C-alpha cells in the first residue's frame, strides 16, 4: 500500500480521536510516514468529532483527509456528510446500531457492525470505537493484526493494564465478528 487516507467520524466522547491515535502509532512503529489531525467543536462531549489519519510510504502532504479511502462512520450525520466524499472503490464502515440506513453508493465496499450494541452486550461500554476498528483491520491492510498489542502499549500506560486488556478484547471482538 502506498498511501491510505482514513477518516474516523462521529460524536465527541465516542473515542474517535483515540482510535485514530492507535492507528497513527502503529504506522509510526512500522516505520511509515503518518499524520493525525483532529477536528472538533469547542465542547468535549456531544459535538461532532472527526479524525484524519494518513499512512503513507512517502512524506505526507496535506494532513487533511477530504476524500477518504476508508471512512468509519459512528453516527448518521457523519455518514451523510462523508459518504459522497469517499473515493470510488473505497471502503465505508458503519456502526449499524447507531445508523439505521445503508450505504447508498454502489462503487464502494460497505461493511456493517453493530459496534455500540456489541459493546453494551459484552460489558465493553465506551469501546465501540475499538470494536469497529477490529472490523476495519479485518477488511483492510492498514496494519498487521499481530501488531495490535504493541501499538496499544504505546497509548495505554502500563499502569492501566485493565484498560489495555479491555481495548484489545474489543478489537478482537470486532475482528472476529461475522
Amino acid at each position, binding site marked *: 500500500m502506498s498511501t491510505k487516507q482514513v477518516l474516523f467520524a462521529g460524536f465527541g466522547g465516542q473515542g474517535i480521536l483515540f482510535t485514530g*491515535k492507535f492507528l*497513527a*502509532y502503529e504506522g*509510526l512503529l512500522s516505520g511509515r*510516514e*503518518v*499524520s*493525525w*489531525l*483532529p477536528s472538533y467543536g*469547542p465542547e468535549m462531549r456531544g459535538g461532532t468529532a472527526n479524525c484524519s489519519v494518513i499512512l503513507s510510504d512517502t512524506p*505526507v*502532504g*496535506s*494532513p*487533511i483527509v*477530504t476524500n477518504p479511502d476508508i471512512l468509519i462512520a459512528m453516527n448518521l450525520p457523519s455518514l451523510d456528510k462523508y459518504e459522497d466524499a469517499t473515493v470510488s472503490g473505497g471502503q465505508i464502515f458503519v456502526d449499524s446500531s447507531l445508523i439505521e440506513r445503508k450505504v447508498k453508493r454502489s462503487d464502494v465496499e460497505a461493511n456493517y457492525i453493530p459496534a455500540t450494541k456489541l459493546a453494551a452486550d459484552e460489558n465493553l461500554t465506551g469501546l465501540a470505537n475499538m470494536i469497529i476498528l477490529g472490523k476495519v483491520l479485518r477488511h483492510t491492510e492498514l496494519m498487521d493484526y499481530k501488531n495490535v498489542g504493541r501499538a496499544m502499549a*504505546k497509548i495505554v500506560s502500563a499502569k492501566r493494564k485493565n484498560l489495555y486488556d479491555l481495548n484489545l478484547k474489543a478489537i478482537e471482538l470486532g475482528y472476529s465478528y461475522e
Partner: protein
Amino acid sequence: MSEKVLMKGNEAIAEAAIMAGCRHYFGYPITPQTEIAAYMSKRMPQIDGVFLQAESEIAAINMVIGVSSTGKHVMTSSSSPGISLKSEGLSYLAGCDLPAFVVNVQRGGPGLGGIQPSQSDYWQATRASGHGDFRRIVLAPDSVQEMVSLTFKGFDLADKYRMTTLLLADGTIGQMMEPVSLDMGEVTKYEKPWAVTGTKGIRKPNIVNSLFLQPEVLEKYNIERYERYKTVEENEVMYEEYMMDDAEFCIVAFGIAARVAKNAIKQAREKGIKAGMIRPITLWPFPKAALAKAAEKVRAFISVELSMGQMIDDVELSIRCKKPVILCSRVGGMIPTPENVLAALDEAGKIGG
C-alpha cells in the same frame, strides 16, 4: 534521542523550548494553543523550571520582559486575540532590545473570531504588533518536525540578535500529530553583558529601558537597531523550493497552506501543469531574492493563504509586480483544498503571459 516519537505540534513546541534551555514559561490559556501551557505545567516542575499561569496575556508578556532582562531564556504563547493583548509588551521588548520567544497558534478573526485554523495574523506578525519602528523574526513551521527545529532555532536567533522571535503557527499544525525527532544538538551560549544580574558591588549597574526622552539619543538607538535588522535580512532568510526547476507557475504558501499546495502541485503535474512552490520559512525576513529570481522565469504567482490576502503584498513587493499574482484563499477557519489551488492554477494559465 534519535528514535521518533508521535507528538502534537503544540506539545512539540513546548518540548523543543525546554531543550533550547527555556526554564521560564508564562501564559494564559486560549484555544488552539492550550496544549503548550498544559505541557509546560507538567514538565517545568520536573526540571526545576517555572510555569506560571498569569492573570492575563498582558501580565504574561510583562513577566517575559522581566525574565529576559536577566538574560535567561523565556517564552510565552497565545493565539490571535491574546497576541493582540501582548502587543504593548512586544513593542517594549523591541525598545529594550531584549531576546524573547513568542508563539502565535493562529485562529480565525477579527475579534474573538473562531477557534479553527487561520493565517490572518500575517500582517500583525510581520508588520505591526506594537507601536514604533521595529521588526521581529517570524518563523512559519509547516510540520510538527519544524515546530521542533524552528522553536530551537528561534531561541538562538533571539539571543544572537537581541530580538523577539515569533513562531507563527496555525491551529492545524498545532493540533496535528506527526512523528518527530527531538535530536537538536547543542544550545549555543551567548554573552549577555547587558543583563541585569546583580552588580555584586563590582561593575556599573545595567539598565534595561525603552524610554529615551532626548530625540538624538532615541534616533541613534533606532538606527543602530535597523543596522542589526539588516544583518538579519542578509543572513537569516529561510525558504524551501519545491519542484521549481522547470516551474511555469510559482505557488507561494506557508504553514498548513503549503502542505495543501504540495498535494495540489502533485495533482497539477499529473495533468501536465508545471507548478512549483516557494515556501517562506522566515516570513520576516521574507525570501525576496528567491521570489525575484523566480519572477524571471515563471508566468504567474499564486499566493495561497488562510487570510483575505495579506502575504500577497510581500509577494508583489518582492517581484516588483513583474508578473501577475493571484490570490487563492479561504478564511474564518476554513482551509483551501487542493481543488481550490488547482482552480487558481487554471486561472493563472489563462492570464499569465
